[in-house]
């Protein structure tokens, strides 16, 4: 490593190494083990996801990668460096979108972007140029001189993402980027993230929304209870752990009992949820005909493709958002 360069962004180890490499990574808070031996590799330019329910250890893992939380055990390299030793140098090349907005409420939209650039050591001229450019990217140019409290939730989120880009990061960490946003705001954010990825930025995303991870991620790990329970691309995981289609059967309250056993033979696997029965099968329409043939009468039925939610259900026996 060339450690003597003044500008931390040019003091980069080679980019062919994995962006993030964790081996047997552990995070403990007192007696609680939040992350229990995680192995991951994030490659340059990919969008990598951590999918799992709340409390699975995603955010703790993310904060260790962000070099704002020291690991308790195991090995971790971010951009080829050790966060315990080179935290500031790593953070100089990361962008971070935390779960909760940490915008500076005492400053305007423009000032938020400018001062954040100053924290990274950019010159005043640079941050002025960057702020203008990023407000355009986040579609906030007309709100430049408003205090951030006056912004809507979606706008604040966009500003947080814009702010995380002020140092042209190599890796962007997004912790639950769209939680609490309406569908329109989510799609707009996704669009921005796609553009970044196309521009070569490595994305690391945590989410408990399977559609988000399915949309955005090339590769993901499914986390549960501090451990990784599966790893692969969304389609790989679905092929490995689920069937092509799913037949969802809904019944009036109290009339679902016993149905699962009666329809079990029509799918490779049947899951019973509190409000519906899921039949996993290659051909949902055929399964539905067979169900009707058996004189089972659901109030509604739906044939859909398998999603990561089904993968998660298969792996853990629980749905993602309990």
């Amino acid at each position, binding site marked *: 490593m060339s*450690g*003597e360069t003044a500008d931390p962004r040019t*003091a980069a180890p080679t980019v062919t190494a994995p962006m993030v490499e964790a081996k047997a990574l552990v995070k403990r808070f007192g007696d609680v083990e939040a992350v229990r031996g995680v192995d991951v590799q994030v490659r340059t330019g990919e969008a990598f996801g951590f999918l799992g329910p709340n409390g699975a250890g995603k955010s703790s893992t993310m904060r260790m990668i962000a070099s704002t939380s020291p690991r308790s055990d195991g090995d971790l390299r971010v951009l080829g460096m050790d966060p315990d*030793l080179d*935290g500031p140098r790593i953070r100089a090349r990361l962008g971070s979108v935390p779960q909760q907005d940490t915008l500076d409420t005492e400053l305007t939209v423009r000032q938020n972007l400018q*001062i*954040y650039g*100053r924290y990274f*050591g950019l010159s005043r001229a640079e941050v002025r140029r960057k702020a203008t450019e990023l407000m355009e990217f986040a579609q906030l140019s007309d709100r430049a001189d408003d205090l951030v409290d006056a912004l809507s939730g979606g706008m604040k989120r966009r500003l947080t993402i814009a702010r995380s880009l002020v140092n042209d990061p190599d890796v962007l960490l997004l912790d639950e980027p769209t939680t609490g946003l309406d569908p329109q705001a989510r799609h707009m954010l996704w669009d921005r993230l796609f553009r970044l990825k196309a521009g070569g930025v490595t994305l690391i995303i945590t989410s408990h929304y399977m559609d988000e991870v399915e949309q955005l991620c090339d590769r993901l790990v499914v986390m549960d209870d501090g451990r990784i329970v599966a790893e692969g691309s969304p389609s790989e995981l679905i092929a490995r752990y689920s069937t092509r289609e799913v037949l969802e059967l809904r019944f009036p309250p109290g009339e679902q009992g016993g149905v699962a056993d009666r329809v079990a033979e029509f799918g490779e696997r049947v899951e019973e949820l509190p409000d519906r029965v899921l039949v996993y099968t290659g051909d949902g329409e055929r399964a539905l005909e067979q169900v009707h043939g058996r004189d089972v009468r659901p109030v509604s039925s739906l044939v859909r493709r398998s999603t990561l939610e089904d993968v998660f259900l298969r792996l853990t026996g629980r749905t993602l958002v309990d």
Partner: protein
Amino acid sequence: MAPTTSATTPDATAAAPARRGLLLRMLPAPLYTGRARALLERSAMVYSRAWLVFVSGVVEPLLYLLAFQVGFGKLVEEVTGPGGEPMSYVAFVAPALLAASAMNGAVFDSTFNVFFKFRYNKTYDAMLATPLGPLDIALGEIGWAVLRGGLYAVAFLGVMAGFGLATSPWALLLVPVALLVSFAFAAIGMVCATFLKSPAQFDFVQLAVMPMFLLSTTFYPLSVYPEPLQYAVQCLPLYHGVELTRGLAVGVLDVSMLGHVAYLLVLAAVGAYFTAKRLAGLLLR
């Protein structure tokens, strides 16, 4: 506790800007990257919209001074000054008020303002996601309190001179002394702010500051206390500030002043260090 505070390697400071000060070479990079100035810029941005706050900070000690000039001054005409010479009561109290206003400004700045950024606005969490370290934050925030204290001190000294209460050229040193008092109290105040859990606990801050203001020989000399109490008063940080300002205002200097300066310097350094440790321990978990 975060290992970030102890880990260091030869190239760990490489994230810092090219210009490296003494602090940069002494402290591990995860704690300090030499960009405390960015926090001063932030404060300047915030207060560019709230400059009226400064006016109130300048006016308040002046009102005190006026009260003593026209009020108490009529009742108590002369007291014995630092050199044993008689002096007007106003001239006796004025330098102490300068020290006390430096204290008040610094404590306010470093407790109220820091508390809300720390607990509610998550301002420091956002900063720590950048190359900035906890000591950058501590020094930047304390630095702002010091600048503000310095501004008030200059205004106050101007009025003192106008009233004829600063009789020695040494009185110019009241400004650096005010900066030192601000630094020490801002540093200690900021450590305390990291322990506060709710705004209601600001009463504890008042509980410490108000008696200190009244008892630190601000309004009467140390000799009025019985001997054991004198030792207790001499432990109070403001006492050392008052001794310095009172002596310098009339140009009565002695070696004990070095002791007062040393006391305040140690307080400042200890405060800044523990602020950084607390921020690291709480935010870099």
